[in-house]
């Protein structure tokens, strides 16, 4: 029995390791590709003289692709989208968690439907509209459209955090002479701070990773890294090392942030449906 159990345990570990090889190999291979010198790109697979030239080229804009600017653009539009969603979304999340009132559920479900709407339904009309309004290829235009990603996430998850807070705490604060506003800012908000931090980072990651919005609604000025990385694949000669370097540079921010919010991911990814 015990021998059999141990054997099964090893088999289970082996199966896990196989899955993780599949999951991690592409990332490892990108690291290898990005360190290859251009003249050894296709002549070898695993043995070569590593060089940082790929990264220098990508970050030095020397291929005519201003990748550093795309990186800054990603940062600006993602942070902008999250901040706007927080300012607008936190009061709405709080209101719909604390009071039952007409229209609240409608608003919540409309927001949720944004999460599942095919992006192009909104983007193609926006493409036409933005040309007229002069918002095409601008930060403002991108931040506006990214609300489709960040606002539903922030409102739904923060509602679930506010709903978890017992209203008695705020009621006690009101009895102590706090105004409703103070009760929100000094009692409720500090208690959900970890939730706010986690959902902001998650929303940032999703905004950063978005591809179809910048693909259609920007051309050069406000273009982001996800579209930028793809442009290294174009051209006559395949520039695999540069593509790999660009891909890796563009995944560093989301990956680092993701590792810091592991504990909150379950609730975030399921829109508050599953809590860990």
């Amino acid at each position: 029995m015990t021998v059999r159990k141990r054997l099964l345990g090893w088999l289970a570990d082996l199966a896990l390791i196989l899955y993780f090889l599949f999951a991690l190999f592409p990332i490892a291979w990108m690291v290898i590709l990005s360190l290859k010198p251009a003249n050894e790109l296709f002549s070898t697979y695993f043995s070569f003289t590593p060089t940082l030239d790929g990264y220098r080229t990508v970050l030095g804009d020397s291929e005519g692709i201003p990748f550093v600017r795309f990186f800054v653009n990603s940062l600006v539009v993602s942070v902008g989208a999250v901040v706007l969603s927080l300012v607008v979304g936190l009061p709405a999340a709080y209101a719909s968690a604390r009071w039952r009132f007409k229209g609240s559920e409608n608003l919540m479900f409309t927001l949720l439907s944004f999460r599942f709407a095919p992006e192009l339904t909104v983007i193609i009309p926006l493409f036409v509209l933005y040309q007229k309004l002069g918002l095409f290829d601008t930060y403002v235009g991108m931040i506006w459209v990214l609300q489709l990603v960040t606002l539903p996430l922030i409102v739904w998850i923060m509602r679930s955090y506010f709903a978890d807070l017992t209203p008695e705490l705020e009621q006690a604060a009101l009895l102590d002479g706090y105004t409703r506003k103070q009760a929100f800012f000094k009692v409720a908000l500090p208690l959900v701070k970890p939730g706010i931090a986690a959902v902001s980072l998650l929303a940032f990651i999703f905004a950063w990773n978005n591809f179809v919005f910048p693909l259609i609604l920007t051309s050069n000025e406000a273009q982001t890294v996800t579209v930028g990385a793809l442009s290294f694949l174009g051209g006559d000669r395949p520039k695999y090392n540069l593509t790999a370097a660009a891909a890796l540079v563009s995944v560093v921010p989301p990956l680092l942030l993701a590792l810091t919010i592991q504990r909150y991911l379950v609730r975030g990814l399921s829109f508050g449906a599953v809590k860990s």
Partner: protein
Amino acid sequence: MGWRLTLRPYILIVPALLLTCGILYPFGLGLYYTLFDFSASKPQPDMVRFENYRTVFTQDAFWNSAWVTVLYAVGAAVVETVLGVAVALLLHRSSFVGRVLEKILILPLMIAPVIAAIMWKLMLQPSVGVVNHLLKPFGLGGVQWTDTPAGALLSSIAVDVWVYTPFVAILALAGLRSLPTSPFEAAAVDGAGWWYTFRRLTLPMLWPYVLVAVIFRFMDSLKVFDIIYALTEGGPGDSTVVLQIRAYLEAIRFQRYSFGISYTIVLWAVVYLAAMVLVRHLGKIQRKAAEAK
């Protein structure tokens, strides 16, 4: 209750409401455009009523796209569910290896899908890609991954599986960890085998969690765009032209705005129906979780 009290929640949601309208407006505008024949070559469009939709539904291209989309969504959702639940079960054993690996489970999920597709495109290149190089010892050195219709669809699904299996695994693992322990202890006392316990206890209790993951994955893959755009651009031929790619080609590449939007409206209607089911289900699970507390 004074009027200020009654109004307070409304005042709090006004900004969100305005922003929501800002997103609904282009949607309504799009819906309106589909009644015209608006395109780059016809900037002063005429009203054609439902002609665009009639064309959509009578086009072979639409039915091909719809079929490819369903194949993709079902294929991806099924594989991700089975693999994700399997990974969750293995991690739930909490062996030393499992505890180490769990920390990096989310990595593929946090990589932009388009970047993931770029990475796989480099790896799957038939002559110089690393996948065929590694397969050479097994006599499979020349697989044309994305250059055959079936291969292109399977490769796209594989990238989807690579990115999103952790999504299912994370939700299933959270479910496993929240299951009550007493039924399992009772089953162990009764000498129930692993398979019996899994089928009669684990799976039924875990099902709501898995279902949330499945519905999310199915609905997201109905509107897949990034992965296919970067990996195959819909090719070879029309073999991977899912609905959103078709809409993109019509509206942006060929600049037939009205017609392209009609495609997305049809897809939107399908996704919306599926969303109604999801919303009902999410509510049920949240209530159940609240009762359990």
